[in-house]
């Protein structure tokens, strides 16, 4: 076997070990590099910043255990951002797992809140919890909240929640922040809330879904988007509260370089082998 074949037949597990090291190393000793802010993140932040005090915003919490490290920091900072501006928040989720992680985001955000900011459950924010049925569930919730939710995530009957007294349809909200994570649920928000009710929407999705939604952003159906951990880091930066996301965004450096190097190396070896065969 020529050197080439031996290099190409490298055991998978060696590559896996290299990847583990490339990802773990920057976590153990982080290096922070300058990072410019993407336009999508800036648009999303500025739209959130433009929400007038006293208005009510709907937030879909779609982060799971796997995507919370990426979206969680951004969502927490946005909750602080809104509560400090006295914007009321109504949360809901279309998954059982995501409903539980939305509670985590709210709790972490409340801890980060400067003292003196009103953040009472049921008055400043409420978590309506899990709505099953995917896109149909979103449509049911958007058209008549009380038809699908009789109590909030913590069991409080909906009629005892002051914040929900005048709210029962999507048009009662000033905006929607759709933290879809990797649910692929952003089209549900666009089709069942933006289009029928005309409520403006921004949100977050994991890095791999950003290209899918560029058409909705370019057409104005969605106002910017927070893309993956980098988007969260940029939101943290714009809020002047750098935190967990920035370190994780930096940790993708060596992994990304290793991947790029392996692709180039693999192709170089492939082309050399192909030219050798042609020469034979």
């Amino acid at each position, binding site marked *: 076997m020529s050197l080439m074949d031996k290099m190409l037949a490298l055991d998978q597990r060696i590559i896996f070990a290299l990847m583990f090291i490339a*990802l773990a190393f920057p976590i153990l000793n982080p290096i922070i590099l300058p990072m410019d802010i993407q336009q999508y993140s800036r648009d999303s932040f500025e739209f959130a910043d433009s929400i007038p005090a006293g208005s009510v915003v709907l937030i879909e919490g779609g982060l799971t255990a*796997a995507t919370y490290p*990426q979206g969680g920091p951004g969502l927490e900072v946005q909750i602080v951002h809104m509560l400090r501006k006295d914007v009321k928040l109504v949360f809901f989720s279309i998954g059982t797992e995501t409903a539980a992680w939305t509670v985590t985001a709210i709790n972490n955000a409340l801890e980060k809140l400067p003292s003196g900011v009103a953040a009472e459950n049921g008055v400043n924010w409420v978590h309506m919890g899990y709505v099953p049925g995917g896109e149909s569930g979103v449509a049911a919730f958007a058209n008549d909240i009380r038809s*699908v939710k009789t109590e909030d995530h913590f069991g409080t009957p909906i009629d005892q929640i002051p914040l929900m007294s005048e709210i029962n349809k999507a048009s009662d909200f000033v905006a929607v922040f759709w933290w879809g994570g*990797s649910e692929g649920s952003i089209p549900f928000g666009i089709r069942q809330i933006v289009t029928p009710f005309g409520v403006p929407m921004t949100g977050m999705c994991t*890095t791999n879904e950003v*290209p899918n939604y560029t058409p909705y952003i370019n*057409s104005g159906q969605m106002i910017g988007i927070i893309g993956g951990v980098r988007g969260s880091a940029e939101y943290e930066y714009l809020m002047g509260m750098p935190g967990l996301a920035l370190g*994780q965004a930096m940790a*993708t450096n060596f992994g990304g370089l290793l991947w790029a190097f392996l692709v180039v190396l693999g192709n170089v070896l492939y082309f050399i082998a192909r030219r050798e065969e042609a020469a034979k």
Partner: protein
Amino acid sequence: MDSFLLGLIAGSFVSIGAYSVLIGDNPLSKFTENLYMGILGGFIFATNWNYVRTSAINPVLQGNYVFIVAILLCVMLFSRLKAEWLWLSRYPVAVTVGAGLGLAIRTSVMADFLGQINATILPLTSIDNLVMIIGTVTAAAYFIFTAQTEGPYKYVNQTGRIFLLAAFGVTYGQTVSFRFELVIGRLVDMLRPEVAIYTYVMLLLVALGLGYGYYTKKIKWYSGR
């Protein structure tokens, strides 16, 4: 040792169990996978049962008898477990699929179809607009299946394929970064200063255990492929 730290350590141990599948299927990875499926199954069962109870059973107990029909449809769904009664489950499926398709179609025609067409009507004053128009039209036309590829359609088809490949290339690059972010998210919790020592000890134990298993052939070693 408060429950938060205990939780992080337990999380680190089970993550190592899950990652051990990278070496090749072994007892630890299979144990971890089945533990995961079991707990997640239980979680989904309990949370959805809570939803059915609060949204269907409680209203009936409080006198709103319309929801008896919903409970009936749920029971009919369970007839799928027996082949002869399968036809009973067609009624609840008809409700969900009928409503699901109706709700998707009614707004998709405006949000997706007309929305994207409207957004692509751009003045031919810039290169970007020109590329966007040609790209959208040829990418949509790529999926025309009743035009034969001999005539001029061949060039439309090939141009559309280039734009689609660019879209998939971008998705590929973004997905690679996304997958790394998933691992980083897990490693951040496993390598926290107060948890790192437990992670290293567990890694050592797993390495020794598997090494012993492979050495004594109790666990099948998958040759490097």
